[in-house]
């Protein structure tokens, strides 16, 4: 996947680069966060937090690939949210928002048409997967990253990406009642 106007390897992620990166990829990052945390407001918060924290850095960072770096930061933010929700769930303050919850997005009538029953089942099954498997599937089948690119975002080896994706797909198929 191309990084568009984002500086290439070894670039300095200064304020101008951060602004350009978010201008070009804001929606994609929010969608990535939405697929992980399940509700739009939180997804936007996560992306805004990442944006602010990158600006807050005391000096310009030199990163090999800015976009994977930011995607990783967004996923980290999502993990923090999910961890907090797990704790809240344990103490009885369960978070109800999910990708199937119409109240979590603006324009519910529109969403009703978009999300068919079949899609709801798939998203529910995806939400039941362990976090790492869910991340691999979203990065592969929504963003369309290669195994090497997913490995760079998640900080794991390409082999682990491959095996995790295979296990995740198998688990998803089982959950959806498919034979293959």
């Amino acid at each position: 996947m191309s990084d568009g106007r984002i500086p290439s390897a070894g670039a300095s992620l200064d304020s101008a680069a951060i602004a350009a990166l978010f201008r070009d990829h804001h929606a994609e990052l929010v969608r990535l966060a939405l697929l992980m945390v399940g509700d739009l407001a939180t997804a936007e918060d996560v992306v805004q937090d990442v944006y602010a924290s990158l600006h807050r850095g005391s000096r310009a960072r030199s990163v090999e690939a800015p976009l994977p770096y930011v995607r990783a930061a967004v996923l980290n933010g999502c993990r923090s949210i999910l961890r907090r929700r797990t704790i809240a769930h344990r103490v009885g303050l369960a978070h109800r928002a999910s990708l199937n919850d119409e109240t979590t997005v603006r324009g519910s009538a529109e969403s009703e048409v978009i999300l068919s029953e079949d899609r709801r089942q798939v998203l529910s099954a995806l939400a039941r997967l362990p976090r790492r498997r869910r991340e691999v599937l979203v990065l592969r089948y929504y963003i369309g990253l290669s195994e090497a690119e997913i490995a760079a975002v998640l900080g794991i080896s390409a082999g682990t990406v491959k095996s995790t994706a295979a296990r995740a797909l198998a688990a998803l198929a089982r959950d959806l009642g498919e034979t293959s």
Partner: protein
Amino acid sequence: MTSTEERLRDALGAAAARVRDDRLRPLPAPETRPRRPALRRHMGWLGPAAAAISVLLIVALALTLTGPSHKPTPPVSYPALPAGFPKYFAQIAGPSQIAGPPGQLDVVIRSTSTGAEVTRAAAPDVPDWRLTPLNVATAPDSRSFYIEYRAVDLQKNTSQIWIYLLTFTHGGSSNYLEWIKGDPFPGSGLLVNGGSMAVSPDGRKLAFTETTQRLNGRSWPDAITVVDLRTGARSTWQGGMSRPGQTLTIPAISWTPDGRSLVFRAVWCRPIPNSDVCLDQSGQPGYRAPEIRSLDVGTRGGTLDHGSTLRLSPSARYPVIADAIAGPGGELTLAVLSGPADAATLTVERVGAAGKRLGVLYRSRAYGTEGRPDSVTLTPSATGTYMLIAYNGPNGPVTGWIDHGKLRFLPNKHPERGLLITGW
């Protein structure tokens, strides 16, 4: 590609399609000043060392020239501030304060000890929107500030309320504006008197006044909204307190120290069309006859009359209550005007929960503005220990903090002296 993969790709695409580019919440606009290029890490000691050597050389040179018997001229000094005193205060200032077009106002943070500008935040530059700061409220850490902007959609000519958190680092050389959780708030025009905003003592809630109606060409704040800053959940109290032929307006709100209630002034008056002037029952301008009410924020919204209780109303003892702040234990700190309009006396005093007078904090017999109370503002520090008071005296604006019955002025040798201090 297997059936599972196809279904997954389709479902992810459909779920993600619900995020529309044109409806995304705008990103905050970080404001940074250019920084000096950083020295390389292993050369970092050079800066402090060079500074220390320079200071030593200057001191040695001064001693050589003046000799030991000569008394050095005392440097410009500022009074020492007590421990826990707020370090910063905020003002809304900018070119349009003089002659510029609207929408060019900045939020300026200054040092309470020197008056020097610490940082300045321009309104976020959002395409097709014009943002104007309305209010600033200080967070309990005394170094971050919530800014309420009126955001006008230049395409649709409608407005919203956008609230950002201003933080700064590196002594103010960099500052950042972050959007608070949740969607924008509805807005309908520039609030008369700018409205009011306050952060709860625990820093978890933000309260501000809103308007639900435009009347005679102006928007009068007549509702109170409280936002949970962690979740974005919001509660609004409005309506239920109307009086025939009069308009309700809420000029000021403040939190009780326990964070469970808000104290607000409710004023009923008759607005003059297309002006910010409101006439009371006697036909005089200003908010002379307010009720001081307490709003339980635990009621999570509703009408103002059911959510609030009357704490104080005008009486012979308190003919004109100009402002009121809640204190610990249920007492109130009042700014009261008394005496003839051309020689009014301003008194700041504490009143117990049962209405008993507990003591006078400050008294001034030099109050200007023909005895109108609308220039008086009491602002407690985030810890509640210190009280800032601003009012129009006969010779111009007066701003200072109350210290054992006396007014101690904040430094005013800066370009924005005379402008209201909106938070500290």
